[in-house]
């Protein structure tokens, strides 16, 4: 079991009202950015990652978004480079580099090699397509997003493994001279993990390459279903998927009392949380998703990935409409209802240490991930609240998770190489999840 710590590194200077009125985090004017606060926060988050190492987390997880106070981290490789030097032993789990947004895979290959060398081989490299707003912010054609992602990924692996110099003429990328001098510390290149939010296409892509898939706070039941699809795909390539092929990221808030934990958990839904990450028109630009994915999303009456549903996708853009006080009141009461719903489906795990241990145990028994990532709260929760949460997780929850992982044989990709469990010819695969346990627990 590999245990990670993650934070979106929220900018803590916007109010809920600002986000609700704008209709999303993405697109709030940077005239609201406070340079002093920004400077303080970047430094605080680096310190927080060091604190995670002190507390015994195995990995610190970094991501990036652009033009968005939801996540201040705009260049994850920069943070990773700093942390490569100021931490000692934690893995640097990058979830992940948005390859189409970068638009220069050779540069990414060089950056990651440098980080892996500086950290002496602690990088776990994740690749992502980037979310919709990233395509707008970086002006990358959403219709070529998947093509660019796949080409950039394949190119980077070549850049790390094929002796240079050589020339590359691809579809979206062209290089006269590929010969990155610095190569990754880990041979032939760092281990990989692919984060995703219930995208079948991404799961299949990951399974085709034996890459572990990290479910990002997705509801437990559909996550288990999706992992069975991963396992099907893996079996079609002749291997049995195991816990080393899966990771689960949970939003976790622990308090000394139930009340304290629930107050803390509300920060995950600060201004509706990721539901207002971006407006529908930015989350789902034309051409960004497959026809099948659009059909699925546009048939959802409610809920849905990043709050998308039929009404939002097929409706009018919000534009700059001002919300009334009554609208704001309704929005806030919806946040309370959403918290309960997300606790019920295991996206948010909040409570006393005992309660949290019990909920995570269910996740481990049902989904059997070999990697578990604790995500800290969003919004403007203060430094002390954030650190107390980390400390309680470390003192009370992590020991239990490790013990249980041992008992359930939840192997990480450092314990068992993904794809190494070969299926004997003619043998069918075994199940990788146990949704019946979830049904039994829900019934009880």
């Amino acid at each position, binding site marked *: 079991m590999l245990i990670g710590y993650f934070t979106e590194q929220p900018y803590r200077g916007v109010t809920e009202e600002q986000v609700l009125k704008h209709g999303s985090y993405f697109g709030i004017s940077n005239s609201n950015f406070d340079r002093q606060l920004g400077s303080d926060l970047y430094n605080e988050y680096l310190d927080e990652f060091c604190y995670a190492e002190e507390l015994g987390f195995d990995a610190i997880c970094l991501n990036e978004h652009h033009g968005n106070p939801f996540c201040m981290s705009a260049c994850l490789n920069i943070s990773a480079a700093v942390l490569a030097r100021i931490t000692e032993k934690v893995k640097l789990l990058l979830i992940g580099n948005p390859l189409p947004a970068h638009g220069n895979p050779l540069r990414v290959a060089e950056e990651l090699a440098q980080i892996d060398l500086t950290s002496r081989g602690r990088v776990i490299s994740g690749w992502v397509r980037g979310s919709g707003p990233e395509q*707008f912010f970086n*002006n990358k*054609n*959403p*219709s*070529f997003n998947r093509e660019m992602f796949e080409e950039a990924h394949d190119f980077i692996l070549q850049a790390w493994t094929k002796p240079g110099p050589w020339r590359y003429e691809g579809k979206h990328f062209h290089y006269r001279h590929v010969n990155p001098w610095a190569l990754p510390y880990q041979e032939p290149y760092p281990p990989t993990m692919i984060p995703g939010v219930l995208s079948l296409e991404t799961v299949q892509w990951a399974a085709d390459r034996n890459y572990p898939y990290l479910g990002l706070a997705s509801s437990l039941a559909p996550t288990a279903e999706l992992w069975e699809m991963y396992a099907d795909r893996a079996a079609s390539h002749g291997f049995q998927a195991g816990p080393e092929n899966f990771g689960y990221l949970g939003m976790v808030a622990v308090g000394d009392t139930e009340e304290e934990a629930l107050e803390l958990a509300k920060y995950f839904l600060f201004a509706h949380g990721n539901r207002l990450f971006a407006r*529908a*028109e*930015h989350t789902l*630009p*034309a*051409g960004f998703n497959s*026809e099948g994915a*659009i*059909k699925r999303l*546009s*048939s959802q009456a409610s809920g849905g990935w990043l709050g998308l549903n039929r009404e*939002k*996708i*097929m*409706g*009018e*853009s919000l*534009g700059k409409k001002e919300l009334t006080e009554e609208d704001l009141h309704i929005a806030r009461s919806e946040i309370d209802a959403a918290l309960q719903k997300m606790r019920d489906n295991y996206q948010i795990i909040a409570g006393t240490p005992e309660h949290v241990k019990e909920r995570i145990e269910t996740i481990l028994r049902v989904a059997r991930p070999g990697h578990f990532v604790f995500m800290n709260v969003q919004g403007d929760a203060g430094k002390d609240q954030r650190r107390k949460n980390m400390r309680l997780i470390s003192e009370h929850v992590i020991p239990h998770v490790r013990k249980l992982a041992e008992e359930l044989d939840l192997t990480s990709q450092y314990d068992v190489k993904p794809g190494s469990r070969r299926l004997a010819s003619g043998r069918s695969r075994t199940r990788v999840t146990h949704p019946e346990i979830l049904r039994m627990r829900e019934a009880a």
Partner: protein
Amino acid sequence: MVGSEDCIEIDLARLVFLRGGAGKPLLILHDELGFPGWMRWNEELGEAHEQIVPLQPGFGRSEQLDWIRDYRDLAAYYARFVRQFGTPIDVIGFSAGAYLAAEMAAIDPGLFNKIVLVGPLGVRPTHGEIYDFLAVTARTHVAATVSNQDAVEFGKIYGGTMGSEQFMLFEAARAETSRLGWQPFMFDPSLPALLKGVPNKTLIIRGTDDLICPLGCVEAYESALPNAVANSIEGVGHRPEIEDPDAFIHLVRKFLS
């Protein structure tokens, strides 16, 4: 009269097109949302013209072609299509279809006789900006194309609740438009220079309330094309042909006659 469907194979790819009316052939290049069906203006122009309406590859009916990556590629492909009907031919292009018509004329002015560009995209506006319809939802995009959503024909084709099938067609059209026109957004920096060599008589039509195509696009076309005249239709948006079909038909008939 309703256009009948036909299809043609160019390099083994199926290009579906509609044809209807009788008389001198007239090429119709639809806009970035796809051809909405046979409207009143098609009926009336059909009295003197056989209209040929290719349905753009990738918009749901004609096969998408991976190698077509910008409007100039598409223009070269359509040039092959048009030659099968005999050239020169008159053409009307709407919005992105006007962009396409201009690219075709730039490649080979001999493809066309007279050219009508309606709410034309394709050139950097001298002032103002082309509306970023890819940064809004399909419904908002559609609504932005007209000044008057109560226009009879607008209601007929886009009124009421949007069905899933219509939504998916819009999304396919918008995805393909994104593929070809994302950056620079819906214009070709070299097109004005090439249009200097296009001697064809050209009529540019724009609604005075057009949100999609700024007046600056019309001015850029006027200064690039040696024989262009511009006409505006009062009180309509980006779809003068359905918002004020009388005025539109009058202008087009007069120009093509």
